[in-house]
C-alpha cells in the first residue's frame, strides 16, 4: 500500500469531526460565558493581591498574569479535561468493535479524532474571548484588565510552535484517558479524577510561576506544564528565547513519552478486548 494513501483516512476523519464539532454554537456560547466569568473573577482577585502586596519584584507583572489568565480561558478546550466521549460511547455500545475492524491503526484514528474534537471547540471560544478581552475591554477603558499582545515577534512565533506541541501533548494525554476508559469499561472514574491533576499542574488554576519559588524546577519539568504553562510563559515573555526552546523541547519529549505509553497500553488492552452480545 502506498504511503500517500495511508494518510488519507486520518485526514478525512479529522476534517469530518472538526466540521461536526463546529456546529455546536450554543455550547460555544455557554463555554464562552463561563470562561468570561471565571476569567473576570481571577483577574479581579489577582489585581487585588498585586495592589496590596508588600513584596516587590515577583516573577510576573500584573499585566502578564492577566494576559495569561485570559489566554488560558480562551484555550480551555485544548486541555485534556476528560476522555473522548465518542470512545466512552463506543465502549458502552460495543462500537469500538467496528474501530478494530477498520484497516487502519486504532491509536492514530482515535488520536486525530480527539485532536479534531478539541481544536474545533477551541476555535470559536478563542475567537470570542480574544474579541472580548483584547478588543472590547480596551474600548470600555478597562485597559488594565485587557489581554495584551505577545512580548515580541520572536516570542510570538515560538508561542505558535509551542501551541502546536501543547495540542499534541494534550491529545496524547487524552489518549491515556481513553485507554483507561477502554480498560475499566467506564468513563466516570477517570473523568472525575483527571481534572484535579490537570487544573493544578497545567497552571489553569494559578500560573505555575506564582507557585512558591522552591517548586519551580519541578513544576516546569513535569509533563502537565507543556499542556498550558509553557506556551503561556513564552507568550507573556517570562521565558527568554533559550528558555522557550528548552520548554518546547520538554513538550516534545513528554509528547513522545505519552504517545509511546499510549501505543503500548492500547496494544495490551486491545489484545484482551472482549466483545459481548451480537
Amino acid at each position, binding site marked *: 500500500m502506498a504511503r500517500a494513501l495511508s494518510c488519507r483516512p486520518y485526514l478525512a476523519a479529522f476534517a469530518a469531526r472538526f466540521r461536526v464539532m463546529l456546529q455546536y454554537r450554543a455550547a460555544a456560547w455557554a463555554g464562552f460565558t463561563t470562561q468570561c*466569568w471565571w476569567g473576570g473573577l481571577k483577574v*479581579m482577585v489577582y489585581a487585588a493581591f498585586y495592589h*496590596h502586596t508588600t513584596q516587590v519584584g515577583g516573577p510576573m507583572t500584573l499585566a502578564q498574569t492577566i494576559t495569561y489568565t485570559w489566554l488560558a480561558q480562551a484555550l480551555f478546550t485544548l486541555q485534556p479535561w476528560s476522555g473522548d466521549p465518542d470512545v466512552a460511547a463506543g465502549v458502552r455500545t460495543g462500537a469500538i468493535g467496528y474501530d478494530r475492524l477498520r484497516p487502519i491503526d486504532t491509536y492514530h484514528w482515535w488520536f486525530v479524532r480527539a485532536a479534531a474534537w478539541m481544536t474545533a471547540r477551541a476555535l470559536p471560544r478563542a475567537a470570542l474571548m480574544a474579541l472580548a478581552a483584547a478588543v472590547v475591554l480596551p474600548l470600555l477603558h478597562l485597559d488594565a484588565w485587557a489581554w495584551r499582545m505577545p512580548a515580541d515577534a520572536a516570542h510570538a512565533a515560538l508561542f505558535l510552535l509551542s501551541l502546536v506541541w501543547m495540542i499534541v501533548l494534550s491529545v496524547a494525554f487524552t489518549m491515556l484517558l481513553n485507554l483507561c476508559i477502554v480498560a475499566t469499561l467506564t468513563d*466516570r*472514574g477517570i473523568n*472525575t*479524577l483527571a481534572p484535579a491533576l490537570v487544573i493544578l499542574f497545567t497552571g489553569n*488554576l494559578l500560573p505555575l510561576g*506564582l507557585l512558591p519559588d522552591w517548586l519551580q524546577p519541578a513544576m516546569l519539568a513535569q509533563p502537565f506544564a507543556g499542556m498550558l504553562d509553557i506556551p503561556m510563559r513564552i507568550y507573556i515573555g517570562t521565558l527568554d528565547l533559550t528558555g522557550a526552546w528548552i520548554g518546547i523541547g520538554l513538550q516534545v519529549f513528554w509528547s513522545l513519552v505519552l504517545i509511546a505509553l499510549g501505543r503500548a497500553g492500547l496494544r495490551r488492552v486491545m489484545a484482551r478486548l472482549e466483545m459481548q452480545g451480537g
Partner: protein
Amino acid sequence: MNALYLLSRYFISSVRGQLLYPGVNLLLGLGAFLTSIIELVGIWALFQRFGNVQGWRYGDICLFFGMVSISFALADFLSRGFDVFGSEFVRTGDFDRLLLRPRSAALQLIGYDFRLKVLGRLLQGLLVLGVATHSLGLIWHPATVGLALWTIAGGVALFFGLMVLQATLAFWTVESLEIVNVVTYGGVQAAQFPLSLYAHWFRNFLIFVVPIACIAYFPVLAILHKSDPTGMPDWFLPLAPAVGFVFLAVSLAVWRFGVRKYTSTGT
C-alpha cells in the same frame, strides 16, 4: 408527616442503589473532594507569594470557602432532580407522570436522586473549616455555631432556589441550561474571596441579583467579628442569610407559575 416519610423512602432507595456500586461511588466522591480541595492550593500559593491582602488573612479566605462549599454541597445533594429537569423530565415528557401522582412535583424532584458523591465536597468544606479554625485560632461558642448553621441554611436555600430557577427555565427552553452553572459553581468560586476585592458593579451583582454575598461574605464577617469595609451596617451582617430564604420563596413562586404554563412535549 407523610411527605417526610415519602422523602425518607426516596432517600433509602437512592442510597441503596448507589451502594450496590461502592467502588464507583467512592471514586466519584474522591474526585469531587480532590477537584474542590485543589482550590485551596491556589489560595495558599497566592498568600505565600503576596502575603495578606487588604487585611484579609489566609484563614479568613478559608472560612469563606469552607462555609460556601458546605452550603453548596448540601443544596446539590437535595436538588439533583431540578438540575437535570430539562433533559430528564421536560424533553422526555416524563414530567407528565410526576403531575399525575397525588404528591407535589417539587417533592418528587427532591426525591429523584441523592448522589453520594456530593459528600466529597461536603468533606472538603468541613476540612477547609478546620484549616480556618486552626489558622485563625477561632473558638466556636454556641452562638458562633448557631450563626454558622444559620448561614449554611441560608446558603442551602439560595443554591436550591437557583436550581429551581434553572429547572423553571427548562419549561421554555426544553433543555437543561448549563449556563446556570455559571452562578452556582461560579458563585461558589466568587464567594471564596471577600466582596471588597471585587469591582463595584460585581459587588452589586453578588448582593442584589444573585445574593451570594448574603449567604457567605456578610454572615462570615459576623462570625469573624469584623465590620464590612464596603460599608454594610453591622446589624445587617448576621441577618443576611434570610435573603437566601426570600430568594427561595421567589424561585418557588416562579416555579409554580412555570408548572401552570407547562405544556407537554407529547409522545
